[in-house]
C-alpha cells in the first residue's frame, strides 16, 4: 500500500464513519472530549499518511469539529480500519 492509497482509504473510512476504535483510543477520546464525529472528520480531512511499519500508518493534517488539528494512528486489518491512538 502506498501512502496515497492509505490516505484515500482513511478518508473514505472517515467520511462514511466506517472504522473501529481500539480500547486505548476510546480512553483518549474520553480524556480529550473527542467524539466519533471528530475522528471521522480528522480522517476525511487528513493530508498525509506516514508508514509506521506493518499495517500501521500515521494519518496527519486533518482537523476535528473545532477545526483543531487531530492526527491519528490507524491499522488496516482484515475487518477494516482500526484507529489505535491519537
Amino acid at each position: 500500500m502506498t501512502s496515497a492509497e492509505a490516505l484515500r482509504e482513511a478518508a473514505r473510512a472517515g467520511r462514511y464513519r466506517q472504522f473501529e476504535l481500539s480500547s486505548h483510543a476510546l480512553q483518549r477520546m474520553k480524556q480529550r472530549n473527542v467524539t466519533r464525529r471528530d475522528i471521522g472528520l480528522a480522517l476525511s480531512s487528513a493530508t498525509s499518511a506516514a508508514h509506521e511499519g506493518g499495517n500501521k500508518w500515521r494519518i496527519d493534517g486533518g482537523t476535528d469539529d473545532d477545526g483543531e488539528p487531530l492526527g491519528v494512528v490507524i491499522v488496516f486489518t482484515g475487518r477494516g480500519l482500526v484507529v489505535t491512538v491519537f
Partner: protein
Amino acid sequence: MHCHECNGDKFERRNVELTTRVGEHTVIDRSVVRPVCAKCGEFTVSAETLEKVELRATLVAFTEAPRVTGAMLRFARKTLDMTQAELAERIGTTFESVSRWEREERQMEPWVPLAVLGLVREKLMPPPTGVELKKAG
C-alpha cells in the same frame, strides 16, 4: 480474526465498560458485548456502535443532569454528527445562537434541550415500520 495489538487469536465475548464524557458529566455504559482478546484484553468498538453509545450517554445526561450546559449541548450536536448550522436548521434557530449556547454566552431557552433530546431519541428509536401516514379525508 487476530488482535491488532498482540496478534493473538483467542477471544472471549463479554460486556465491556465504555465511559463517555458528556460535558461536565461521565456516563458509564455496560451494555455493549465485544470479543475481548484473551491474551492482552484488547477490544475494538465500531463507529456504528460508538454512535449508539454516544447517543445513549447524551440521553441519560440530558435527562438526569440538573441542567443542560453549553458543553453538553456541544457534545449532543457532535453525537448527532451535525455542524452548528445543521443543528440550527433542524431546531429552527440560527447557527449564531447554537454557537453562543455552546460557549455559554447566552442562556438556553427551556425548549432547546427538549428539541435536541427529540433528535437524539429519533436517532436511537427510528419510527416503527409497517405504519403509514395518510392525509385524512
